[in-house]
């Protein structure tokens, strides 16, 4: 479904991605692990066309997308739950969800309303707060809103950047349960996480990114069992 081949990306003169090769197959949950500044978020932004790769190819459903504007990529079916949630604080919950459906210009109003209801069914807290400003929500609610907003684009591939960051442990489990149920409903997921144990427990495969390169790639179960991964990313000695 998604394939990155030798992707290189720069921020100004700094080469952030040196060579990223990864593949996500339809229906999977794939986990991308890596330490701080390893290039995880940049990989996400490169897939969406927010950062332009300086070399390599990004393909989505067998078509090159690395030269397309972000709006076209979103319209083709990729959306992002960004790091640190980044909801629109000065818009209401409902308006945030409407922004998520921004590219679906031709969708009939009834269809959008039904999708909003679907998000509310997934996150009843959002329904209670639909007229509240996004900035007044708690961290957990904001994460739900960020996920709901991304779902409003009806993505076939959902990118999630650190969905557990800053959440209480109880909420982390909840969020990952929801990620799993979104996946069961047919959305493919690429998730970037620092919380490797939880992420690998729901993923089928994992990649490890280090200094802008994919250094390890294996089945999630094998990664969870591998000693060096446990030491590096699961905080075990």
């Amino acid at each position, binding site marked *: 479904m998604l394939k990155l081949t030798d992707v290189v990306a720069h921020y100004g003169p700094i080469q952030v991605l040196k060579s990223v090769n990864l593949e996500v197959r339809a229906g999977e949950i794939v986990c991308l692990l890596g330490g701080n500044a390893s290039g995880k978020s940049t990989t996400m932004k490169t897939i969406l066309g927010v950062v332009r790769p300086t070399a390599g190819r990004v393909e989505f459903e067998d078509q090159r997308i690395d030269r397309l504007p972000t*709006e076209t990529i*979103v319209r083709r079916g990729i*959306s992002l739950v*960004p790091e640190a949630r*980044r909801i629109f604080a*000065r*818009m209401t919950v409902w*308006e945030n969800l*409407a*922004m998520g459906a921004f590219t679906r210009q031709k969708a009939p109003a009834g269809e959008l309303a039904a999708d909003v209801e679907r998000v509310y069914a997934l996150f009843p807290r959002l329904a209670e707060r639909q007229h509240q400003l996004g900035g007044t929500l708690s961290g957990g609610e904001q994460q739900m809103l960020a996920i709901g907003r991304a779902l409003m684009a009806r993505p076939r591939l959902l990118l999630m950047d650190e969905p557990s960051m800053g959440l209480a442990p109880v909420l982390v489990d909840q969020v990952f349960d929801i990620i799993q149920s979104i996946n069961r409903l047919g959305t493919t997921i690429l998730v970037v996480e620092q919380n490797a144990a939880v992420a690998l427990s729901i993923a089928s495969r994992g990649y490890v990114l280090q200094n802008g390169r994919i250094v390890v790639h294996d089945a999630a179960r094998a990664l969870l069992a591998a000693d060096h991964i446990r030491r590096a990313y699961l905080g075990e000695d």
Partner: protein
Amino acid sequence: MAGVLAILPQQIVFGLALGTVYGLVALGYTMVYGVLFMINFAHGEIFMIGAYVGWWVLALLLKAQVGALHPAWVVPLMLLHAMLFAGLLGVGLERFAYRPLYLRGATRLGPLISAIGASIFLQNAVMLSQGARMKVYMTSLLFPRTWRIQIAGASVSLLVIVMIVVAGLMMWGLHLLVQRTKLGRSIRAVAEDREMATIMGVNVRRVIAVTFFLGSALGGAGGVLVGLYYTQIDFFMGYSAGLKAFTAAVLGGIGNIRGAMLGGLILGLVESLAVTFMNPAYKDVVAFVILIVVLVFRPMGLLGENVAEREKV
């Protein structure tokens, strides 16, 4: 004192008219600041050119001798042309004077200097093409001096009421557009977090261009209203009007649309009351003293929010 009280209602109505027009022009500064974080110093010139376009429409109608000119259709015609021309001019400025700079990652200072340059350029272009002498709006042909209405015992020119209604309706329309429509949501999204707006699939450059169009069109409309009221326009009128409107935008909180409207109203009322109660020469002094006092206690302006800048990685 009795004399002063007798003209007070009239001065308040006049202050409202001045205030709504300041607000209208202030919106152009505040909207552009909202999406680009730059002060479009050429906005005063866009306002001035709006006044010229309105003058041209009126002059052409007079030349064509179309018969009786009734404000009910002439004023909308003047406004429409002025808004369209000013709006397109704003889009052109953005495209050729500012976008090349911000796309190449210029600091905020670059577009600002470019705006000052555009302001000087437009002033001189108008002076060369239209002449340095002032033009006279034939307002009395549209609004005869006898068209007055009584408000609280004071006699107010109908034109002043028209100014309040037109400017008020435009502000209300903009408010609805920004708060209730998808386009408005995309403008707010770009203003709040440009990268996230991009990730939602918003074409940020188009939103910026639309914002310039809307703000400039409102500025152009303000030019026509001011031209009709003061009846004299010249190529330099945008300087002081622009400064006042910019003050109104800062007073209300730059970047905040309701703030620009509120700032304009306060400034207009204060000026008009200052003229009533003291030497008219002090009206600008009073206006700026109020600005300074407000900024001392609320540096972000009356309705501005103190939003910490988000780290952009």
